[in-house]
């Protein structure tokens, strides 16, 4: 059985179509990352999956239950970690978890035991009696995740759970996601950090402007770029005026520029780099740095959209 199955899901807000017919499948026990820039439609998609907003068209299934026709059954199988911290700051970590556990019908010793387990998992057993309002951003993020795991869901949806936190807490959260997956949970993980998607995912769906533009394993997606190399250049001035000239260079398949930073996807860096620099010199800008990289998900996005997937 597919843990998550999304069929032609659409959502419009007035005349604006935020999600334009999305199809996704996640097998049980896998981590599927939904990767895309801000405004790609990721959060709208998972809002429909979690029952927050109704689709304009199409349907989605969680463990076989339709989110539109069987929302209660679908939600029982689902744990949702919202992008923003959604906790009660004036309650302690333990009180928060007790409340969310009760909302999933946990009671008595089962509830207490589960709270102890998740506190242990997120490493906050020692701070369980402190009010959440006093926690650091990273600690709040961890409690935010724990609240979604109280009922041991089959599927966990995490909406950018590492936004705005320190590297240590990010590491802790990524390790938690892997641990959950090892326990058999299916994870739908949305992010705009390609490193996280690359590290965690069994499959990655790249989303842009309300559509899934690529789907596959990390290696499958990289192969879409072929043998191309990514070159990051930094200049001392704006370079927008030079972009058309760069695009004319043979072997350059994608280029994106902003604030003096340029990302180019080229067939052969040895041939393309001198030409890129020559055109830049003719445009009157001075090179500050050059970085040649192996193809990655950023390259894939650039290849598919002609734009960089920036933070």
């Amino acid at each position: 059985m597919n843990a998550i199955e999304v069929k032609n899901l659409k959502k419009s807000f007035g005349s604006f179509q935020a999600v334009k017919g999305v199809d996704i499948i996640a097998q049980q026990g896998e981590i599927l990352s939904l990767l895309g820039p801000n405004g790609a439609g990721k959060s709208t998609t998972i809002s429909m999956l979690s029952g927050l907003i109704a689709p304009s068209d199409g349907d989605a299934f969680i463990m076989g239950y339709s989110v539109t026709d069987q929302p209660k059954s679908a939600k029982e199988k689902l744990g949702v970690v919202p992008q923003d911290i959604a906790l009660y700051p004036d309650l302690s970590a333990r009180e928060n978890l007790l409340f969310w556990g009760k909302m999933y019908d946990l009671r008595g010793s089962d509830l207490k035991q589960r709270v102890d387990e998740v506190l242990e998992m997120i490493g906050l057993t020692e701070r369980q009696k402190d009010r959440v309002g006093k926690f650091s951003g990273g600690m709040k993020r961890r409690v935010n995740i724990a609240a979604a795991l109280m009922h041991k869901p089959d599927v966990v949806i995490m909406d950018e759970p590492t936004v705005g936190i320190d590297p240590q807490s990010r590491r802790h959260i990524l390790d938690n996601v892997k641990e959950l997956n090892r326990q058999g949970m299916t994870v739908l993980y949305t992010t705009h950090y390609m490193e996280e998607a690359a590290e965690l995912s069994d499959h990655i769906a790249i989303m842009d402007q309300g559509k899934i533009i690529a789907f596959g394993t990390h290696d499958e997606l990289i192969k879409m770029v072929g043998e191309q190399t990514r070159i990051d250049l930094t200049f001392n001035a704006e370079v927008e005026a030079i972009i058309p000239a760069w695009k004319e260079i043979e072997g350059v398949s994608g280029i994106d520029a902003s604030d003096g930073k340029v990302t180019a996807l080229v067939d052969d860096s040895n041939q393309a780099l001198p030409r890129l620099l020559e055109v830049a010199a003719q445009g009157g800008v001075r090179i500050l740095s050059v970085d040649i990289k192996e193809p990655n998900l950023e390259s894939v996005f650039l290849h598919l959209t002609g734009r960089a997937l920036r933070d």
Partner: protein
Amino acid sequence: MKIMEIAIKDLTRSFRSLFAVGMTIVAPLLLIGLIFLAFGGAFNGASDLPAISVGIYNADILTDTSILVEPLGANIRSMFVDESVQSWITATDFSSEMSLRSALDRREIGVAILIPVDFSERFLAGNRDTQVLILSDHTLTIAPQVAQNMVTAMLDGVSGGGIAIETILERQKIQGVQPGPEQITSLIDRYSAWYRDFQRDLFHNPESAALMMVAPTGETSSENPIQQMLGLMMAGQMVFFAFFTGAYSMMSILEENEEGTLARMFTLPMSRTTILTGKFLAVFLMLVVQGIVLLIAAHFIFNIQWGDPKMIVLALLGQVVAAAGLGVLLISFVKTSRQAGPVMGGVLTALGMLGGLFTANMNMPEAFNRLAAFTPQGWVVRGWKIVLSGQPASDLLLPLLVMLVIGVVMFVIGAFRFQRRFA
């Protein structure tokens, strides 16, 4: 079960908020406490004013030809030495005007009443020059006013009696009857006796007086007018803060919407109706807790006698339903918690003033009372006045019915708006 869990969580959060506890419980008690202390209240409940110290020099005597049996000066004096006023007036007789004035100068007395020699005869003859002189310590305000009012009331009664007797005599004359001196003396005696009893009853036994007082006349409140006043003021403040609490508690739905916890709850396997019902239940519970705490605290701290427990329960029920209804309706029109503050403050204060919550212990013009009937607060405070005055339960039925109907209608409209907003 989940409904109750949501409500309990909201209550827990409210009672951890210093602002909420302050506005719900502390502020009304503090306001009444200040007034209580201002009136010299003591924590044993004996909050009487200090006794008024009055000195009297009565030189009034009757001539042999007087139609009166007893001089008016003696009647005036008897009012101040009557045993029924001894708990709040200490009266002392003086043998001369000089000794009376000296006692006042030495502040042994607060008020001096000087009744001149032929006061009765001159007063009955309509001589405007004659007067009872009331002197007082210039630092006192209430005591001289009380003494003046008592003397004025007495003399007004005598004047009224004179008019009444003249009217009787005129009437008998028209009918061709010529009353003899014994008959006139008898009339005067009967009137004097009636008026003395009337005055006594009016001050000290109003339920049996021919003239009924409209102000609260319950057994307990009539024993202590300050307690009665505090009770009304406490009721006004309790109602004001109850409506504030209703709106403030409902505001938590806006805060949860902004905190993201409401959206998170919507991802849980339960209906949105369950979630909203839990929020509404929290408002009701908060109001019940607030009402009970304030009623008990006011009773034990300020010795306020609320009255019949069954009537109290009914009035509190009406208050809770009306305050919750207005709270839900009011907040349903507000988009954010930042908007809610000014809206709540403005609307509830205006409605509170119109409803007479700040003038609950005063006799206001009829037009104002009619205006109060257009506010839920006006009906709730009317209910508490009935309970405090010890009136029968049947008198409470109309205000209670209005409170419940207003509350339920507002609640239904507000709940419908929330359902639609979060659908």
